């Protein structure tokens, strides 16, 4: 109320002049907007933020932003981010990608990033499809979705449950948002960045090209999780009743984030002594 707004950078400052290749109408647009708004809201200097991604439509995010970016290979965004944060604790490190990138080829890193609890914010834009490669089923695709020639009749497999897995694997901040509710998404990103530890935000982000029926998400989502649980078991209980469309911050734990160990410094020349005979 006291001219505070003066100190807030403009969200547009976090948007680059590279124009997205995304299909007009794609849910991912709202995500880059929300990321920019969150960074502006927190007043983070662009040069102190890094945005890491893999491959996929969703993974194109970094180029559309003016922070440091790393558009790596498919499925490996989390390890890149982990290395960066462990080596550069001073940076704010965000990770973004899709359901294919994060839960299919990148599934193992997801599990271990949740456990490792490095202070990262991981945003998965889930559209239950591989957008970039022309619409194949992803881990979160319904068993009977027959929109892909690669899985005629549907993948026939129970969908992957991102939040359950994240909780089981030990993530210390777990939330769900919808790209059609950018304000809530922005809030979650702010909270996730401020949370010290691994934060996972599951964003329902429709692919209007291969999953046009996802336009109906807006009628399905309901903002239910108003208060994050601080107890994992409680969060699990909530999740056991989930229909996949509740949004909000489900869980916020308090385990300390992983950091490099600090040890008294030793000169390299002093290390030589161990070899001397």
């Amino acid at each position: 109320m006291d001219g505070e707004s003066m100190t807030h950078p403009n969200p547009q400052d976090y948007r680059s002049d590279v124009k997205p290749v995304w299909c007009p109408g794609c849910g991912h647009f709202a995500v880059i907007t929300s990321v920019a708004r969150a960074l502006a809201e927190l007043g983070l200097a662009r040069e102190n933020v890094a945005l890491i991604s893999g491959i996929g439509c969703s993974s194109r995010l970094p180029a559309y932003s003016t922070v440091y970016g790393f558009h790596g290979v498919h499925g490996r965004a989390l390890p890149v981010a982990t290395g960066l944060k462990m080596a550069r604790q001073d940076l704010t490190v965000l990770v973004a990608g899709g359901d294919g990138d994060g839960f299919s080829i990148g599934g193992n890193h997801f599990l271990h990033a949740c456990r490792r609890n490095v202070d990262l914010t991981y945003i998965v834009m889930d559209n239950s499809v591989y957008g970039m490669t022309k619409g194949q089923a992803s881990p979160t695709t319904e068993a009977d979705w027959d929109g892909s020639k690669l899985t005629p009749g549907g993948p026939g497999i129970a969908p992957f449950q991102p939040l359950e897995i994240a909780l089981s694997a030990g993530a210390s901040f777990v939330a769900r948002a919808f790209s059609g509710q950018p304000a809530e998404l922005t809030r979650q990103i702010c909270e996730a960045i401020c949370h010290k530890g691994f934060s996972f935000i599951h964003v329902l982000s429709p692919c209007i090209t291969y999953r046009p029926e996802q336009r109906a998400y807006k009628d399905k989502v309901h903002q239910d999780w108003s208060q994050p649980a601080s107890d994992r078991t409680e969060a699990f209980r909530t999740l056991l009743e989930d229909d996949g469309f509740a949004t909000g911050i489900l869980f916020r734990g308090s385990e300390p984030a992983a950091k490099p160990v600090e040890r008294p410094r030793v000169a390299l020349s002093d290390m030589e002594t161990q070899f001397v005979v």
Partner: protein
Amino acid sequence: MDDLGTFLAHAVALEKESGERFDALADSLEVHHNPEVVELFRKMAHFSRLHLREVQDRAVGVVLPHLRPWEFSWPNAEAPETPSVEDTHYRMTAHHALLQALASERQGQAFYAGVAARTVNAQVKALATAFAAEEGEHVALLEATLSRFPPPPANWAEDPDPPNAPD
């Protein structure tokens, strides 16, 4: 909304986000070679920026609070005059674009009218009423324009070419 600063903060955000969104949509359609719609969206963005300046002018001397993105009292998920992303399509026509713009202006009008009806602050009421009237003019203008752009045939979205996988 009974505080003038808060109200103006809303008005500023409403126009700013509207302009930014129209520009973003224009960019997106430019990438997809839809010049007709691009031109329309750019125009809308331009108008939003003009209105933004007007609102900012009226706000001179008023201390605007900083509201965090989720602290705005919007009736819906986004600021009312922000055209929704999901209503765009790469083959959309001017007709669709106008409908989208119209929807956003109508929401804007409804928002201001709602504030005017509920606020106890006379200054806010006056301003909101004025803004609602302005939006009403825009609505009328767009409605008029829309009549010149009849709906395209039902299969407008149909594309004989398959999608591309740029990986």
